[in-house]
């Protein structure tokens, strides 16, 4: 289990700087490669899980993405940040998987039960925490019903904390369109949550 903190890529970093690590990994330094893998595999896996909804597929995609990440390391500009670049690879791998299964991104909704089963509940649960965890489950359930475009932009911004700039890079869209697309997705999510709430009532 990994909490939110270790998932955050810190560009200023407490340990070694990211570009130094990339340079070392490129020079064939095994330790640097291992450090990169341990730092970036968890967020890559979680992104894959959030897109695909199931653990086995997410692990497959992550393995493929990490492999691709290391084989393309030489063409990577070390001034760029690793996370958006790796996320671009993960996203492509996810799309490849959908294509192999002959599904269009539009109808590749992850299974909501399977996705929320991977949520970690807070250890100590006073009532307030329980209510919050319930809301989290509802939100991920609703996210699973969105289109993959809407889901990915919300996940990249609100879970992985990517800047608008990084989101534009990962999705391959102009930065000027990020805000309106994100807002549209958030509105849709809110609508789904309201629908869900009405069902419960």
């Amino acid at each position: 289990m990994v909490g939110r903190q270790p998932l955050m890529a810190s560009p200023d970093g407490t340990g070694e700087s990211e570009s130094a690590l990339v340079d070392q990994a490129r020079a064939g330094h095994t330790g640097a490669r291992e450090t990169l893998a341990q730092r970036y595999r968890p967020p890559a896996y979680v992104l894959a899980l959030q897109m695909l909804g199931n653990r086995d597929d997410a692990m497959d995609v992550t393995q493929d993405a990490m492999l691709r990440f290391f084989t393309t390391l030489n063409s990577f500009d070390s001034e760029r940040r690793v996370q958006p670049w790796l996320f671009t690879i993960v996203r492509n791998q996810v799309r490849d998987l959908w294509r192999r299964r002959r599904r269009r991104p539009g109808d590749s909704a992850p299974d909501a039960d399977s996705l929320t089963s991977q949520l970690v509940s807070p250890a100590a649960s006073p009532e307030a925490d329980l209510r919050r965890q319930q809301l989290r489950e509802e939100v991920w359930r609703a996210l699973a019903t969105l289109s993959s475009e809407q889901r990915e932009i919300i996940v990249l911004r609100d879970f992985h904390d990517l800047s608008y700039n990084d989101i534009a890079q990962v999705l391959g869209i102009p930065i000027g369109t990020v805000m309106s697309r994100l807002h549209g997705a958030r509105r849709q999510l809110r609508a789904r949550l309201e629908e869900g709430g009405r069902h419960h009532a």
Partner: protein
Amino acid sequence: MPDACGRTFDEAFLSGYLDQALVQGDEQRVRVHLEDCVSCRALLEELASVRDATMSSTFDIPRNDEWSEAPRSGASRLLRGLGWRLMTAWIVVMIGFGLWETWQDADNLFERLLLVGGVSGVSLLLISVFLDRRQAMKTDRYGEVRK
């Protein structure tokens, strides 16, 4: 929703405001409007609470050793599946061939009876195991449906 609220900016700016991604002038414009507009404030609060739920979620991730056990790629996973199937087919063929040879080589009725008895015993055992597995799979599937 906030149709007649009189804001002079696109509603998407509320998301930009939430993400602190607006340039200073826009940020100020939104802030000033929010002071007077209840409906935009309400929408912003809702968006913020949903975002907080997403942001504060934690997912279970595989342990380090689980990564080394998993097949490295889709291709190796495919090959592994193929390998298992080929090996099973090979074992079945070899056993069948062995039994056939033994049958041919048997000198008398007693040896043949021994062979038939042995094969029937093993087959019955296998069939019973198979029936149990099928039953288990069926009940599992019903369990899934009931949810």
